């Protein structure tokens, strides 16, 4: 694996080049590009507001701005996760010519998708900062957790992205399965709701490796608390293992890519 990583390092310029290509193509019409980056988070936030409002009505509990802020904060990493996995799934088959014609480490494709999605994440973050300031949620020391949380999300997204990109090259219907899972995944991940609403049963939700990270994002940014450390550790370990497993899986199948695409 060491030799493979060294080779990947040699091709780092290509990784940026392909990521830039994806970003450039998306932002060629700058208004559309920006909309693209914020559209999905905005939709998620709006859906979250509807869900939270319905919940507040049903339970006769007041709807706090901090809850809305938490939904907004969690929607960004969720959107990043979804778009990375969705586009990574198609990344190899969409670049068919390059996969079959020219040699280079093919993990560059899912990685470039991740980088491009990360760029969208930062664009949307700029919008989020304005939104949070409007809700009067400002600086706190718990914001220092963000790099760790972001890194965990990146590891998880990349790992899953590698799995699905390689798998969808061999099985054409993997992309449909992934699409369905991503669509319904939002119900099993605390984006609209908070895990604490489930009380004791919340730990079942937290078994979803994306849940502790998203909860930690909400806690650190919106509620200015530190994250639930044991569960966050679970998430980090899971993300690391996913990345290692996904990379090994990808590299194991890579020699057969050109013949099977």
């Amino acid at each position, binding site marked *: 694996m060491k030799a493979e990583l060294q080779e990947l390092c040699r091709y780092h*310029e*290509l990784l940026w*080049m*392909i990521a830039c*290509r994806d970003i*450039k*193509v998306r932002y*060629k019409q700058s208004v559309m590009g920006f909309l693209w980056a914020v559209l999905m988070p905005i939709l998620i936030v709006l859906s979250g507001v509807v869900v939270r409002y319905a919940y507040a009505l049903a339970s006769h509990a007041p709807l706090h701005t901090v809850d809305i802020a938490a939904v907004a904060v969690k929607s960004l990493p969720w959107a990043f996760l979804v778009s990375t996995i969705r586009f990574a799934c198609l990344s190899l088959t969409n670049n068919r*010519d*390059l996969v*079959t*014609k*020219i*040699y*280079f480490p093919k993990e560059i494709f899912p990685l470039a998708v991740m980088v491009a999605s990360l760029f969208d994440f930062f664009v949307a973050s700029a919008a989020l900062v304005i939104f949070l300031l409007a809700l009067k949620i400002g600086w706190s020391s718990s914001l220092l957790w963000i790099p760790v949380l972001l890194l965990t999300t990146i590891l998880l997204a990349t790992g899953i992205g590698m799995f699905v990109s390689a798998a969808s090259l*061999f*099985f*054409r*219907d*993997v992309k449909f*399965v992934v699409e369905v899972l991503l669509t319904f995944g939002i119900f099993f991940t605390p984006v609209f709701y908070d895990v604490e609403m489930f009380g004791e049963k919340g730990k079942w939700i937290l078994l979803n490796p994306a849940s502790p990270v998203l909860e930690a994002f909400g806690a650190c940014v919106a509620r200015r608390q530190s994250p639930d450390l044991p569960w966050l550790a679970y998430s980090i370990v899971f993300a690391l293992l996913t990345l290692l497993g996904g990379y090994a899986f990808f590299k194991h199948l890579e*020699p*057969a890519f*050109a*013949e*099977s695409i």
Partner: protein
Amino acid sequence: MSDIAIRMEHVYKKFRKGEVFNSLRDLLPALTGRMFREGELSEADKREFWALQDLSFEVKQGESLGIIGQNGAGKSTALKILSRIMKPTKGRMVVHGRLSALIEVWAGFHQDLTGRENIFLQGTILGMAKREIQSKLDQIIAFSGLEEFIDTPVKHYSTGMCARLGFSVAAHVDPDVLIVDEVLSVGDFAFQARCVQRMHEVLRSGTAVLFVSHNMNTVAEFCQRCLLLEKGRTLMLGPVAEVISAYLNRSKEAREADASSGPVMISRVTVRNEHGACLRFHAGQKAWIDVDLAALVRCTRLSVALYIKDEQLEDVFGTSTTGLGSPEFSLEPGQRFQCTFELSLNLVGGTYYPTLLVFRCDNQTTYDRWMPAATFHITSADDVRGAAHCFPKVVRHEVLAASRESLPSNPEPETPVASER
């Protein structure tokens, strides 16, 4: 580092033909089905075939090796293994230095990006550093001849323009090993000439070149040695002229196997100079064309005709044994006949295809026709056009002093007297 650039050692490649499960929907029932019918596993093994068998060769730095063979002979598979896109099933392959392939030269282009952006993208894909591309950018754009359109998105380009841009990037990679697969035929005449010139530069700079083409003359022009593949096996590896003529004769044998043969068969045609099989001649040199034929039934009053066709397959020259004064001949079943034409190749530079005919003199029935039976290439130092080379010389070439009476003081309507002009 040794001076070997490429070494293939006993490389095998196996493919599976027929149905492959490429969706979960098909795979799951098949897996459960297989549990009940275990005997069918062996049938899957039968569907395998060898695309390459025991391929071994070496290419030194600065050397160029041609690979020829019919469609499906394994040429592309060999190149894909070399460029590491595919892994050999068995065997070892070593490439020293940076390898670049001129295969589908615009594979990395993105339709929405401009020509300039695509140069950077494609260049990086081909393994160049960004700084390297920056320094060669002007050269690449000039080579492509697309200065006017370089900031236009590639989706507005024609296929020819894409190919030119792609080739221009690929031609400036400066690799240690270059793989060329049938790409010199892009663009118009001027661009092709530039490509050929660039290929010669690359060869001179010490790059090892692997050249795959169906155009025997391009192979003959660029390669010293040649590899002939058939159905994945190495048939021949040797000097380019010998291998190419063996290949052309082989396609004849393949035609014989088709058994649509008449009473007389032309079995072998060889173009040679005084030393042996030869593909490249200078204008004005002598060439000999050896023809072998065999009769299957009794034939009388036979003659052999030779036509030389140019690249457009137009006849530029034709003659026959009887036309040159040799007697008509007759053959008994199983008898063979040989004749040799001697030609002075007073032809301008280009590719020519000898075509052979056996016919019966009295009623002009054609018994066998082989077109093209061979191929050869003429080089000429002079810039002459047409088909026949008349070896012209300029024997008078001077500027005359203006004299008073020849000045057109009083221009008259031009009279159409050709000899005056």
